[in-house]
């Protein structure tokens, strides 16, 4: 695999820095190899593949007892579409934190009002797992 060969030892640091700046999202298999090889990149922060984020976020929402799974979509608004209130939203944020091993500060959590907000937050977070 060309990608794997490029990320050879002398170029690891540069590769990691490039990844951060360009937010390159290679496909699954290559990505797995790159992550394994570019240790520095992992330490500095890597971004999750967006489609995986979407799947996992939707799954977390659907497993919330207050939520009707049929109403969950990428654009669903918590209040308008899912009928959630502020305490429900706190629970949703906590479930997202657990799923992606993140800590979302109150100020940021307060802005998360829809599935899209969650996806954007997680997808642009360098330490999401």
């Amino acid at each position, binding site marked *: 695999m060309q990608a794997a060969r490029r990320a050879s030892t002398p170029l690891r640091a540069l590769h990691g820095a490039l990844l951060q700046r360009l937010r390159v999202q290679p496909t699954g298999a290559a990505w797995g190899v790159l992550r394994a090889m570019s240790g520095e990149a992992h330490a500095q922060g890597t971004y999750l593949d967006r489609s995986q984020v979407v799947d996992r976020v939707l799954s977390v929402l659907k497993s919330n007892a207050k939520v009707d799974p049929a109403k969950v979509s990428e654009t669903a608004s918590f209040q*308008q579409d899912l*009928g959630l209130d502020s*305490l429900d939203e706190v*629970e949703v944020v*906590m*479930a997202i934190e657990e799923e992606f091993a993140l800590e979302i*500060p*109150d100020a940021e959590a*307060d802005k998360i009002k829809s599935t899209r907000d969650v996806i954007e937050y997680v997808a642009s977070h360098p330490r999401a797992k």
Partner: protein
Amino acid sequence: MRPATMLATAASHHLFRPLPAPSEVHLWCLFPDDVRDSKLMNMYQNLLSSDEQKKILEANNVKTQNERLLARTLVRTTLARYGMVDPSSLRFTTNKFGKPKVIWPSQVEGNNSWRPNSLCFNLSHTQSLLACAVTIDSEVGIDVEEKDRKLSRNLMALARRRFSPEEADWLSRFEDPTQQQQRFMQLWTLKEAYVKALGTGISETPLKDFSFALKPSFHAQTCLERAVNCTAHSQAESITMEFSRLMASNNKSRIPANRWQFLLLQPSPLHIASVCTQMHQPHSPDDENLEELNKCFRMKMWRTLPLVGDMNLTEGAVALGMSLPAQEVSSSDTKTSLKQY
């Protein structure tokens, strides 16, 4: 005026109310189950502005739509009582953080004869109860919840993550799960009521950075009996709020924790509610005056069916706790009481 509005005004003429006194909170509770007549819902709809009606339709389920309709109705009809105006004539704006404020008709028309612009209000609602708190010259916040609401996540994990360490520790000591869950809801409503009273949103005031302590207090029971027009719980508690060291040290213009008056109550056997209001500025900053002001604190509660009638909300309502004058509960007392749990 449209026919429906004329009917509404005529019907509600007898419902006009005098303004709350200083240090007084008026609490208007609407139980959706009381609304049996769909004609009434239509009349309510006619009170709303076109923006409000549009917002209702944005909700994609009937339950939320009805809740929003009742919420706007409650706010309009409640405030209209004090202004002796047509509920549909009120206009609303928000502060820069999104907290709603009312614009009175006299302000709009430039009529200077009477301007009730010192009236403050806050609304909270769940599926089975809507409540609007009104004060004069004092910010107010309210939160209502269903008392036995089930959390879909582990309660202690939520408390550890979002509440203060002291609050989480206190919660962890309750062995009975029902009691622990109800205490969680009490803390939640107290915290929400404070944030809503501040009106600056949660980014200014992370939930972790302020802490409530509830402590059984005979004095609380006597204060509650004087302050509210419903039963005071036989094991009423004092409510104390403290800021974390971090919060206390930044933003020196923040109103001190002990200048906020809290009240915790069950407006019905199924609900828990917290009300937060400012204590008025004393003429001198000494404790004696603080106690005097606190003695004046009153809350009046009504059960209302907008456009139809009201009654005092005494039956089924229980007051659980309130803030007491500073000298009643010093911080060392609070620490001692926590150890006792």
